[in-house]
């Protein structure tokens, strides 16, 4: 049936002057047999049959086509070429056969002849676009991209139309790693049809693999923008290239222009600002966010931009580790807070309000230490927006705030309510851990262990791991008296640390160490004390405290950690790299199985000035 359809198709084809009478039934049967032989790879048997068929019906194109294919399959290129020439001699317009002949000559290794043949096709009809396309497709088949480019470019010149073959040439240039030329072609396409931008972007995407090729594509697009500043697609393409090259400042200028010219009311700028923030181009992102706010204060993009600016300032602060810096140096955290405050003034009814308020409360609590303001803000969220995720997060933060201000009963109530209401999820688990820790701080160790045990199911989560740590600490540190006095003192010191009462925590630990020098919890206590001394800026005391631990408790879990922390202090605060190397090496020698060995090795190499 398929072959009958082929014949019908061929009959309908005006270029082939055959008629239905040319093919009789016996020929169809023989042709089908030849086809079967071809499919079975029996070319030697198929070829004579096809030759006979073609001889008896020389005008039947499909006989010719199959015979040529068969010759090609067995690499009998000379016979294939002769066949094509024979067909050509019968045809009124031989271009298609000449093109085929050129390809066969190339496959036969006669490259010069092939080029001459292709050239001769072009010379026959130098003003016909379809002839250039025929030759180009033939060249594409044998992957002669550079010559294909020459052919199409020649066609343009001869025909006098610079817009011809744009997408074909663009693809060829991209394939040959000439992205600048490819972009020039696509610009031509966009000139007539800016709606093709998505197509152009998708075509260029796979070839934008290295910065040098992307860079090469920039100048033509810049020129196009200068030439036709009102063509939005040019500008969008240019901004895409700039972003790929991480030239955010340049991209910003382009996006500014688009937003202004196209009356986007800040939507384009806002989207770009987020892209720049994700790329860590903080200053550019700030400018873009602020421009939205300045130019379009009443547009829908404005509240998003204001909130986005605050979130971005928090991200920037995190990258700079501002939490570890003095208050005066927490510039971006302060900026984030100011931005959120502005949001509350400008958009007090916006849907972002609960989220913004929660962020403000957390900043006040965790970073700026203004617990009173934090409590006021977070309470407002829980009161005004009950049942929202923001309200739950605010309630959790309020529980932590109650611990910090020594209102443990209040904290317990808040966490219990959260656990009861949420039951599952990250916030519920975190609340359970807080409850376990509250029991621990208050000396209710059995209750703390019971809660911690209930949370051990998912050991991949940080919360579960913290719960396991708490359980192990309690189980290994009970006694010597029935009141577990040593553990109570340690729990008290932990609570004081959490409440930022560092001096008191150190005093509590000093008492503990003096009174229970042989207790299993003492190495924990010494390690905690050393860390607190470091927090207080007492570096020498902290170093000494760390170095005592492996001497007094050589088998302790904290031995390697203490050496590591002492080495870090020597490196970062004392400025003594030799001492740091000595301590890192001591860690490697004394604790060869420590989990910190790879970090210590890396630190030694960096300190030795090696390229790591």
């Amino acid at each position, binding site marked *: 049936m398929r072959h009958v359809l082929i014949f019908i198709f061929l009959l309908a084809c005006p270029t082939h002057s055959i008629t239905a009478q040319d093919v009789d039934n016996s020929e169809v049967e023989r042709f089908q047999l030849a086809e079967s032989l071809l499919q079975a790879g029996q070319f030697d048997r198929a070829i004579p049959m096809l030759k006979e068929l073609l001889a008896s019906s020389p005008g039947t194109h499909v006989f010719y086509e199959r015979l040529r294919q068969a010759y*090609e399959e*067995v*690499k009998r290129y000379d016979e294939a070429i002769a066949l094509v020439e024979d067909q050509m001699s019968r045809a009124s317009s031989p271009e298609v056969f000449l093109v085929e002949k050129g390809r066969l000559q190339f496959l036969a290794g006669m490259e010069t002849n092939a080029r001459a043949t292709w050239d001769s096709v072009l010379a026959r009809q130098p003003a016909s676009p379809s002839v250039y396309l025929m030759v180009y497709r033939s060249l594409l088949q044998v992957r002669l991209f550079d010559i294909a480019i020459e052919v199409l470019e020649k066609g343009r010149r001869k025909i006098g139309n610079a817009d011809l073959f744009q997408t074909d040439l663009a693809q060829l240039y991209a394939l040959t790693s000439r992205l600048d030329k490819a972009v020039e072609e696509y610009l031509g396409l966009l000139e007539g049809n800016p709606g093709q931008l998505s197509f152009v972007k998708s075509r260029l995407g796979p070839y934008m693999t290295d910065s040098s090729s992307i860079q090469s594509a920039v100048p033509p697009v810049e020129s196009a923008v200068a030439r036709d500043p009102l063509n939005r697609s040019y500008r969008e393409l240019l901004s895409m290239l700039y972003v790929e090259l991480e030239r955010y400042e340049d991209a910003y200028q382009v996006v500014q222009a688009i937003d202004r010219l196209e009356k986007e009311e800040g939507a384009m700028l806002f989207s770009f600002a987020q892209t720049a923030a994700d790329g860590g181009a903080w200053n550019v992102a700030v400018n873009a966010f602020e421009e939205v706010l300045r130019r379009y204060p009443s547009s829908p993009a404005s509240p998003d931009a204001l909130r986005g600016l605050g979130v971005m300032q928090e991200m920037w602060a995190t990258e700079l580790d501002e939490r570890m810096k003095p208050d005066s140096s927490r510039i971006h955290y302060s900026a984030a807070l100011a931005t959120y405050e502005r949001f509350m003034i400008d958009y007090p009814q916006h849907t972002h309000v609960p989220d913004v308020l929660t962020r403000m409360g957390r900043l006040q609590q965790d970073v700026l230490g203004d617990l009173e303001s934090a409590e006021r803000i977070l309470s407002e969220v829980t009161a005004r927006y009950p049942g929202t995720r923001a309200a739950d997060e605010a309630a959790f933060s309020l529980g932590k705030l109650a611990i910090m201000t020594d209102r443990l009963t209040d904290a317990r109530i808040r966490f219990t309510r959260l656990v009861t209401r949420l039951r599952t999820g990250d916030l519920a688990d975190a609340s359970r851990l807080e409850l376990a820790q509250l029991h621990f701080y208050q000396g209710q160790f059995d209750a703390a262990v019971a809660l911690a045990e209930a949370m051990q199911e998912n050991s991949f989560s940080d919360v579960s791991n913290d719960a396991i740590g708490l359980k192990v600490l309690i189980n290994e540190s009970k006694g010597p008296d029935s009141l577990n006095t040593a553990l109570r003192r340690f729990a008290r010191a932990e609570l004081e640390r959490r409440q930022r009462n560092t001096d008191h925590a150190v005093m509590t630990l000093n008492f503990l160490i003096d009174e229970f020098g042989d207790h299993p919890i003492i190495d924990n206590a010494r390690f905690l004390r050393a860390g607190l001394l470091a927090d207080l800026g007492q570096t020498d005391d902290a170093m000494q405290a760390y170095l005592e631990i492996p001497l007094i408790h050589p088998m302790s879990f904290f031995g390697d950690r203490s050496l590591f922390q002492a080495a870090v202090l020597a490196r970062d605060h004392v400025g003594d790299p030799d001492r740091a190397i000595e301590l890192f090496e001591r860690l490697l020698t004394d604790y060869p199985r420590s989990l910190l060995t790879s970090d210590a*090795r890396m630190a030694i190499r960096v300190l030795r000035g090696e390229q790591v």
Partner: protein
Amino acid sequence: MRALVTWITLSVVLSVPRIASSQDLLVPMDNSQTDHLKAYGIVYWALERTVEVDWLLNYRGGSFLMPSSGEVISELRVRGVSYESLSASAAARTMAEVQSEDANTSVVRLEKPPEIAVYAPDQTLPWDDAVLLALTYAEVPYEMIYDEEVLAGDLGRYDWLHLHHEDFTGQYGKFFNYRSTAWYIEQQREAELAARRAGFRKVPDMKAAVAEEIKAYVGEGGFLFAMCSGTDTFDIALAASGTDIVPAEYDNDPIDPDALSNLDFSKTLAFENFRPIFNAREYEHSNIDSGPPPPQLRNPAVDYFTLFEFSAKYDPVPTMLTQNHVATIKGFIGQTTNFRKSVIKPNVVILAEAPGRDEVRYLNGTYGQGTFTFYGGHDPEDYQHFVGEEPTDLSLHKHSPGYRLILNNILFPAAKKKKQKT
């Protein structure tokens, strides 16, 4: 190569071991070692500083003995390689024990750090290379070379050459399904340009010429180590040199109708009487590879292969190549995983095989003055490495027996006294 084997044999049996210094360091390679892979890097590092190292074959997993110094100890600590300090008398006792006629152990002196070349393109391809990972993790220096350098005759500068997931048949790894991806397009384009620059009309012709250059390098005394499809495609390309076995999907013209009868197995190193696969869409080059294990065994928990044990005193080469702290190694799959036994040439030494199956995992042979080692599979610590997956983090596999086999190979040339290229 015969000269090399003779020399190593003599050095093993007759040479007087290094006189024990006042104190020596034993780097144990049994289960007590904290980082088996970095240990090879330490040996290389020591050889670079003209410290002679004795490789104690079959002694505690193939341990190393070297003179002690503060610098060496510091480096061992920094790299996390465990060691034992031996007094002069203890070191002498150890050497005597290793050289005892009663034990299947021996000593090979390592003298010179081999110059290592890795055959790989500059282009970043979306899969990892186990040898590059091993060399990088062990901190063993290497240089990258590719077709242009090989054809320019640069191989003579190196003692050891590595091939990995390469396709010497010029079919771009038969990644036909990926032909529209940027990396495939770039790979094909780069290969075509390289072929043209080198005067070849087609990529398969250039790859065959590269394979022949590499074969000549081995013949002149080079050490060739290949993994995954770098093994079988190498021999396929040699056998098919001069005939077209590449389907039109890859080189734009059909295979030679007489391709099968034109194959010349006398040109190959390890395999014979194999049959290339001409289907462009089948992700397999020939029947040399027996493919992954049968479905019931295609499971990292049950798939493994076993190393053969050789006489350390009389078969030092295969003994060196199979040093390990375990005799059974977990399997791993690659484009080429296991070599079908029936197509392996009779003069090739089988180093490891999959038990109960007629499949070889690891083999070694000689050609001219040099030697070749083929190791099936892609990544010893990633059972089935897929395109685009993250490379394996070897710091999580410091004791990998599969990776140890790779690193045994780089020390093998260090045992050679000097280049014996004719």
